């Protein structure tokens, strides 16, 4: 048995099936937990919103069982890393990569406004708003790693 004595960096990891009902539970947990860990309550709200949007995607676009969320607070850098992983189809992974590229390439507010204008015209279920919303509301950087059909979306919050 082993217990870390190093409490420099906080870490949370949860793994579950791609089921919608888990999302609100995880969001509420993170909001409560982070409001204790982080001095500023605003971050707990923003990070739990982002986690909720990412988990919605992980569930909606899952091609197989397995959803993983991890939260890593690097205290020395004063950054928080939020990762969400799932399996998905080639088509969705392609869309995700181009969405993230578009979102990171523009000014967050302009991109979000443009996405909102586009969303008004969409008749399918999707909104294409979630990722742009995260970027706008948190000013965080979004990154995607792909390994075959496994996708990892990372959002880096600069807590300064």
């Amino acid at each position: 048995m082993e217990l870390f004595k190093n409490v420099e960096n906080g870490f949370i990891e949860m793994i579950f099936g791609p089921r919608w009902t888990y999302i609100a539970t995880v969001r509420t947990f993170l909001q409560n937990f982070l409001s204790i860990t982080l001095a500023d309550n605003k971050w707990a709200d923003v990070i739990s919103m982002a986690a909720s949007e990412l988990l919605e995607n992980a569930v909606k676009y899952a091609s197989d069982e397995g959803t993983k969320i991890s939260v890593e607070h690097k205290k020395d850098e004063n950054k928080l890393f939020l990762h969400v992983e799932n399996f998905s189809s080639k088509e969705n992974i392609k869309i995700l990569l181009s969405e993230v590229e578009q979102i990171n390439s523009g000014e967050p507010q302009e991109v979000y406004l443009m996405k909102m204008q586009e969303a008004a015209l969409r008749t399918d279920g999707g909104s294409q708003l979630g990722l742009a919303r995260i970027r706008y509301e948190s000013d965080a950087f979004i990154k995607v790693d792909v390994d075959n059909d496994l996708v990892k979306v990372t959002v880096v919050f600069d807590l300064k």
Partner: protein
Amino acid sequence: MNSFGIDNVITEKATVELSDISNGMKVTFSGDIDVQNPEPIFVPFFEQIHNKVLENNIKYVELDFSKLTFLNSSGIKTLIKWITKVTPLPVEKKYRFKIVANSEITWQETSLKMLSMLAPGLIEIQIK
């Protein structure tokens, strides 16, 4: 009940109520809007309100979000759909919105401010 005869929306985690106020209509949101597909629930409701507002020549609609604790991006999309129905209307048909936000709920100020940017001059925001 409201004078439009439109039923309120009551879901497991959220309630959206329509009521009459002296200078127009008021929609009060409470709870969490976090279902996978909010469109079939909210789009027809907002459409009914929009049609009745036009029919009755009402010029003011208040959207009170101060008791809404969560709204996902698909929920935001349903509001965008409503607001962008008003922007292309001729001046004499247009009506104004007032959005009431709660400063203690972090996402409200940022997300709701963006809604007002969709329809410049048509939406006023009150943060309390």
